[in-house]
């Protein structure tokens, strides 16, 4: 079977009906109130599929539910018995947005890298993922900037493109191929014209974004430690601690584990979604909280999304879905943050260079002339002053460290690790 096929629109429901016989079919449905939610579909004739807008919640919740029972326990006398709850319902998630599918690929990495999370993986291996590329990005979408949409090149089982009267279907992973092969009579091979049409759709979609954010610059600001500290104060003031940004994020995977007694002798162990912006998230048993201030927690959140994940997995864990942008009470969202970082970084780079220059002059490691020349060169390289001076051999790494340590009253033998990895 070819990798590129055509499914006519009038066959869509028939195809879905067939594949939903052995799977629970989950698809985006616009309800009578106008909200689009990913819903389990008992009968295709009773719902309005919405293949154009982004569901309120990401697909994450089908693998890492908002709350889930891990096991039930019961006590008889001194004996405990346990009953593990594993969900192995076969599912097809149909009509996912590319950003949401990309989010699941990210979670796949997280839930099996150090520890294979059975609850997650059990659901995952029983699920087929079918996305539909976005011809028309929504108001706050910026997946083009995060390279996780509007169309994917891999990772899907099947990917659909809406060509007007028909869908262009791309086969990705084997499970997609199996489905198509089993129900091959719905499909016909795509012609050269279809391929060209699809390619045009991709190009057009990419030109239609309302939001373009400079993810690369933001990440490099993190790398070079050039984030203007005042940004955290501002965001901290505006955050209202609702936790919404984590709840709606396709890649936020933090959870809390709690035991919920149901009676004297029985109960459940559950895990529930958590958010790093909550005070209780980092508070230690003794009451001390390393991130007591809201701005520290927000700082941690953005560091995690854009810096630590990037360091560890070579990609930020933002998929550009724009949900946090839509919902934030105080505009403490990804787009606003990146804009703030990019706009202020320039100034802050200059300011921090001047500050370092003064410190080095005071320590006798540099003279004013050398500083002036270095700053001029820096304007073209864009590197931090310290890095540049070291590269140019004007000073040594130890020299910079000692001068800074003296200035900031850090003992010379102090550790360099911090809670934020700085």
């Amino acid at each position, binding site marked *: 079977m070819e990798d590129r096929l055509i499914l006519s629109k009038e066959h869509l429901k028939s195809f879905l009906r067939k594949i939903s016989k052995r799977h629970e079919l989950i698809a985006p449905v616009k309800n009578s109130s106008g909200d689009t939610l990913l819903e389990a579909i008992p009968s295709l004739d009773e719902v309005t599929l919405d293949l154009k807008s982004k569901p309120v919640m990401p697909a994450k919740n089908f693998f890492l539910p908002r709350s889930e029972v891990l096991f039930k326990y019961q006590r008889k006398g001194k004996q405990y018995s346990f009953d593990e709850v594993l969900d192995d319902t076969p599912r097809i998630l149909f009509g996912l947005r590319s950003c949401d599918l990309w989010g699941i690929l990210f979670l796949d990495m997280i839930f099996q890298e150090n520890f294979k999370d059975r609850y997650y993986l059990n659901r995952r291996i029983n699920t087929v993922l079918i996305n539909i590329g976005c011809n028309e990005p929504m108001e706050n979408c910026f997946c083009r900037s995060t390279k996780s949409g509007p169309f994917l090149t891999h990772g899907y089982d099947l990917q659909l493109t809406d060509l007007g009267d028909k869908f262009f279907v791309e086969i990705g992973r084997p499970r997609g191929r199996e489905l198509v092969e089993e129900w091959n009579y719905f499909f016909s091979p795509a012609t050269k014209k279809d391929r060209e049409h699809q390619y045009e759709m991709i190009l057009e979609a990419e030109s239609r974004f309302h939001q373009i954010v400079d993810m690369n610059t933001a990440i490099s600001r993190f790398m070079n430690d050039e984030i203007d500290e005042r940004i955290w104060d501002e965001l901290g003031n505006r955050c209202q601690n609702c936790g919404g940004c984590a709840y709606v994020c396709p890649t936020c995977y933090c959870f809390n584990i709690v035991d919920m007694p149901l009676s004297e002798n029985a109960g459940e162990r559950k895990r529930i979604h958590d958010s790093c912006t909550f005070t209780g998230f980092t508070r230690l048993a003794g009451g001390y909280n390393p991130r007591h201030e809201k701005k520290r927690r927000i700082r941690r959140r953005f560091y995690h999304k854009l810096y630590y994940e990037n360091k560890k997995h070579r990609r930020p864990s933002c998929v550009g879905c724009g949900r946090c942008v839509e919902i934030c009470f*105080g505009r403490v969202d990804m787009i606003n943050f990146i804009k703030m970082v990019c706009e202020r970084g320039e100034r802050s780079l200059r300011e921090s260079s001047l500050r370092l220059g003064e410190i080095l002059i005071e320590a006798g490691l540099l003279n004013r002339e050398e500083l002036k020349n270095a700053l001029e060169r820096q304007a073209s390289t864009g590197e931090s002053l310290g890095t540049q001076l070291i590269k140019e051999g004007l000073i040594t790494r130890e020299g910079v460290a000692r001068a800074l340590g003296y200035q900031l009253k850090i003992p010379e033998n102090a550790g360099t690790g911090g809670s934020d990895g700085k």
Partner: protein
Amino acid sequence: MHRVLTTCCFCACGCNLYLEVDDGKLVGVIPSREHPVSRGNLCIKGWNSFEFVLHKDRLRFPLIRKNGRLEKAQWSEALDLTAAKLTQIKDKYGPDALGILSSAKCTNEENYLLMKFARAVLKTNNVDHCARLCHSSSVIGLNHAFGSGAMTNSITELAGAELILVTGSNTTEQHPQIARFIFDALERGAKLIVIDPRRIQLSRFAHVYLQPRLGTDVIWLKGMMKIIFEEKLYDDSFIRMRTENFDAFSKDLENFDLEYVEKVCGIPLEGLRRAARLYASVKRAMIIYSMGITQHISGTDNVESIANLAMLTGHVEQEFTGVGPLRGQNNVQGACDMGALPGTLSGYQDVADNDVRKKFKNLWKTELPASPGLTSIEMFDGKRIHGMFIMGENPAMSHPDINKIRAVLKEMEFLVVSDIFLTETAEYADVVLPAASFAEKDGTFTSTERRIQRVRMAIPPVGSSRPDWQIVCELSKRMNYPMEYDSPAEIMEEIALLTPIYGGVFYNRLEDEWGLFWPCPDKEHPGTPFLHKGSFARGKGHFECIDYRPPAELPDSEYPFYLTTGRMYQHWLTGSMSMRIITLVREMPEGIVEINPADAKSLGVESGEPVRVISRRGTVKVKAHITDDVPKKSVFMPFHFKETPANILTSTAFDPRAKIPEFKVCAVRIEKVQ
């Protein structure tokens, strides 16, 4: 899994959310994105609102006190006993020996039925609810000034205001969705004035922030009006065409000395001048206020002063322009609308008015008592009430001076409580009836913007619990006044018949367009997002001359600190629900007292150390939280926590007109615990 759209059970923003149901259990919450207030997000409470519903502490069967202990009972037994006891007390002492507390947590239909039960079955007007404790002064004050006691505008209009004055409302914590519209307005270049004794989050965004002493609101409001008057910034034509009593009012302003502003409120006059000029100079200004204004012995005065200020500048009667008392609870607006008040039947129809009573009598087919009943505060004087039915309220935590309240509850001849948990109040009951939560019943809530919205059943009632409307029907039947309703929709049909402001409210109309704003007098009426268009509900707006009265209890040498009480973002009222939600408990596990760093230093207290807070009424040992969000010589305590109940300390002094207690000011002493 399926989802059921409903209205949030916490504050009065009226967010709509989907409860996620899997295998008969609530497993999550999804905010509605299309809903004009939720806009795809909820506060921390809303996001976690599914969790308490199936908590193991839920009351699953009725309880009857036997030999001093509450023991499991059958419904028939509990209802028979309740009906018999209420009848017995009514026969022995007369109907006015009975008191009913309705509930701002329950639906409109339930509040309507319970007030009908009080009046038609028990024959008493002794029915009230916790609006007494939060906005009774708004209902009276705004009614007096404008002719309607509710928010004049809808929430979404805030985003279009040019200026917003926030006073006595910690909006980001207590009405986060409303704060979101304030942020939207700021983005569009609106100005913000914050006037609050506590340095709240919004104050950091304010163009003018003033920190007056507690309980001095009449002075700064009058000062602001005097400045506007002197500088001729008032709206002359509006005053002439739309208001009355301005001559007397302007003379009163002329006699007011601006020196008082600095002397009494402790705020710089220049700051107030800036605020006054800003407020008066724009076209579209909104005033947002809440309990910091209402919970004083001068609560009604404060509210009327705010109304005066709005009328003086013509800042009412238009879109994006008005006065917004932010109601605290999911259905406190509705409970008032339904007449769960001692002086009014549903729709604020005066119970003393013969024509009104006649209308109700014709439909209810029974005589109704004419003289207004006792308020929720007066019911606990320990003298007049011998039997009580309390639906979903917790006065043993929420009322001032709770030691006294608890003593009265203990001595009560017969107390029946219906609730979802065994609250501190229910512990004193003779009969406890297990009620269904918001997720287990149908009905409507009316949010702070007067938006009437559906509440929908997501799961069947937990255990053998029942919705309160069914409980009231069962009791009524046993007291020879059968109430037969198949559904809350049928109750609403009766409400519409009797209540002009709800005249066009029918369930089929509530399915689309996110509910209806009252007044909605008939089936064709589209509802009213903003009030007083063209003319005030009472005809002409009324200027009231107001003199300052200081709080009833001021600090002295023995009790040198002001104590003010309120709520925290993470918790909800008396904690019966929020203290059973894991994420919320983790955010804020226990009570605190906020103390200014300077005071903490002189007391020798570090953050996290326990202190004793002592008032004339009692002592609470609680952890100190040191913050300069509170001014010197003032401390703040939330009242959510049963281990550290702030209301042991609060004063029972109340506003003579609204009977609202002065929760916001009393005097205390702080002692370090050695």
